[in-house]
């Protein structure tokens, strides 16, 4: 699969039509999806939509860069008229009544929505194994997990099904699967992209972000998706957007921080080696590299597993079996709620709902949720301080490369630990990107760059330079 930039050029100069491109994508999905399980469903109208774009182009209409480009959608982002399950039985056969803001913006830009990708149930997981629709496999080795929770979207791009897929990132759910599958994954600054029409997991952490083959492509898609939306009160009026064409082509003088807390004794030596080789390249090209410290980062996972379950409990309260979704009739209303939710939700979702009910319950709120939000402040202060001294913070994206399917499935705490490098960016509400950085143990390694809130520009600059020079 070529990049969006290259495909867009071909569509523009007439050497390729959108119909040809979409047909090629659908053919590849038909041939290879069964063994990977990246897509849950493929849109039967995609070819007609592509034809319509071709007609408009032929009529001389000046179409944007995404016109006619196929994009896959994680199954927790609403597309009106499409079924949406969030990987859960509780939403089986549920049809979206309206479209998410990002979907409206992409459609207005002429993007062709190809289908729905697999995910951990309600985005709770790090391996795409908790889906009601079965696990997704890593295209580099089908006995390994692709990461999660947006594993289907990561695989859709890594396997060459589509040049772009949307994911959502609450604790690393875009970056970690991007890392494990060898593609680019961006978690924008909280507030940059509207969450309207995203099935919420933890509302103070969730952001929609793209999977692409290059950083340049990620920036292209972000230009279309980002910006204030009156339907999401937490979305922010952006003073400027970053056009990829305006990004400096070098990293001379770029200040890079390596947090010592992320490079610890006992970390995977092959992953460390790949990351340090990348650091060396930046240094040789004139970047200034220094060690920095984020002393509260070690508490991030603990804070996350209070903040996220608390918000999950509240958000998933809406699944009552009455207004929509799975319904299991009980003897009375309470019985109906308990049966519907007990049967409809999977194990990991139930685990987190109960955890949140506990941490929010009377007498425990101050000790848990309030405490965790205070620790969030301390974590953010660490990042704010460090990001005064450096332009970007560089770390591995994941502790490990793709692991064996099933290996961590029954051990929640070990599974949670696999997000330890990504969670801090969500808690600190800053942007972060994962970029392919060679292989370790024969599988892809991801390099993570984190920056100041709303300074995606710096991540694009460092990332685009790195991918051009590797």
């Amino acid at each position, binding site marked *: 699969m070529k990049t969006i930039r290259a495909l867009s050029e071909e569509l523009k100069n007439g050497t390729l039509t959108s119909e040809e491109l979409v047909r090629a994508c659908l053919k590849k999905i038909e041939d290879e999806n069964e063994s990977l399980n990246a897509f849950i469903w493929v849109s039967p109208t995609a070819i007609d939509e592509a034809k319509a774009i071709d007609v408009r182009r032929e009529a001389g209409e000046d179409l944007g860069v995404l016109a006619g480009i196929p994009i896959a959608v994680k199954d927790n982002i609403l597309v009106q008229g499409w079924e949406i399950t969030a990987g859960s039985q509780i939403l089986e056969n549920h049809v979206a009544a309206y479209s998410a803001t990002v979907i409206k913006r992409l459609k207005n830009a002429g993007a062709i929505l190809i289908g729905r990708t697999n995910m951990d149930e309600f985005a709770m997981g790090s391996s795409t194994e908790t889906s009601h629709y079965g696990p997704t496999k890593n295209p580099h080795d089908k006995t390994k997990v692709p990461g999660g929770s947006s594993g289907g979207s990561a695989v859709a791009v890594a396997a060459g099904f589509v040049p772009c897929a949307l994911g959502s990132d609450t604790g690393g759910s875009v970056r970690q699967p991007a890392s494990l599958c060898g593609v680019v994954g961006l978690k924008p*600054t909280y507030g940059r992209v509207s969450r309207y029409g995203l099935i919420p997991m933890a509302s103070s952490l969730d952001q929609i972000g793209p999977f692409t083959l290059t950083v340049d492509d990620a920036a292209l898609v972000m230009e279309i998706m980002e910006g204030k939306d009156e339907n999401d009160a937490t979305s*922010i009026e952006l003073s400027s957007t970053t056009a990829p064409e305006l990004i400096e082509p070098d990293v001379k003088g770029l200040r890079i921080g390596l947090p010592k807390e992320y490079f610890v004794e006992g970390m995977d030596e092959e992953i460390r080696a790949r990351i340090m080789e990348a650091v060396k390249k930046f240094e040789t090209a004139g970047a200034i590299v220094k060690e920095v410290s984020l002393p509260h980062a070690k508490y991030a996972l603990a804070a996350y597993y209070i903040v996220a379950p608390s918000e999950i409990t509240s958000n998933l309260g809406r699944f009552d079996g009455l207004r929509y979704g799975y319904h299991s009739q009980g003897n009375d209303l309470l019985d109906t709620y308990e049966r519907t939710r007990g049967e409809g939700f999977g194990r990991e979702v139930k685990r987190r709902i109960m955890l949140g009910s506990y941490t929010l319950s009377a007498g425990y709120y101050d000790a848990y949720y309030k405490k*965790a939000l*205070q620790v969030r402040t301390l974590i953010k202060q660490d990042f704010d301080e460090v990001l005064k001294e450096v332009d970007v913070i560089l770390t591995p994206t994941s502790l490990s490369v793709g692991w064996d399917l099933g290996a961590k499935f029954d051990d929640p*705490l070990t599974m949670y630990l696999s997000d330890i490098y990504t969670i801090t960016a969500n808690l600190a*509400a800053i942007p972060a990107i994962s970029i392919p950085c060679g292989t370790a143990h024969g599988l892809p390694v991801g390099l993570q760059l984190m920056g100041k809130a709303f300074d995606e520009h710096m991540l694009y600059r460092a990332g685009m330079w790195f991918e051009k020079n590797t």
Partner: protein
Amino acid sequence: MFTTEDVKKIAKLSRLYISEAETEQYREQLGSILEYVDQLQAIDTTGVAELQHAVAVENVFRADEPSCNPEERRRAIEMFSAKKGDLLEVQAVFSKDV
């Protein structure tokens, strides 16, 4: 640290039916997760504000006008588990014996 009764109470608060086998599993798992997150208690957070958002935003307004698209409304109603006309039909909320 967690008893079976605790887990049953939390499941009740969560409006979740869980089986006996699940109860035992959750007792262990929730216990170990809570033990892990308890490390936060060691941090002194006196006087530290709670973080809710990257940028301080407050009082976000929009026009107070009905904005529901009739088509969206119709599609939402179609998904009700049971209905009478346009209304959602549910089992009794209060029982006569109470």
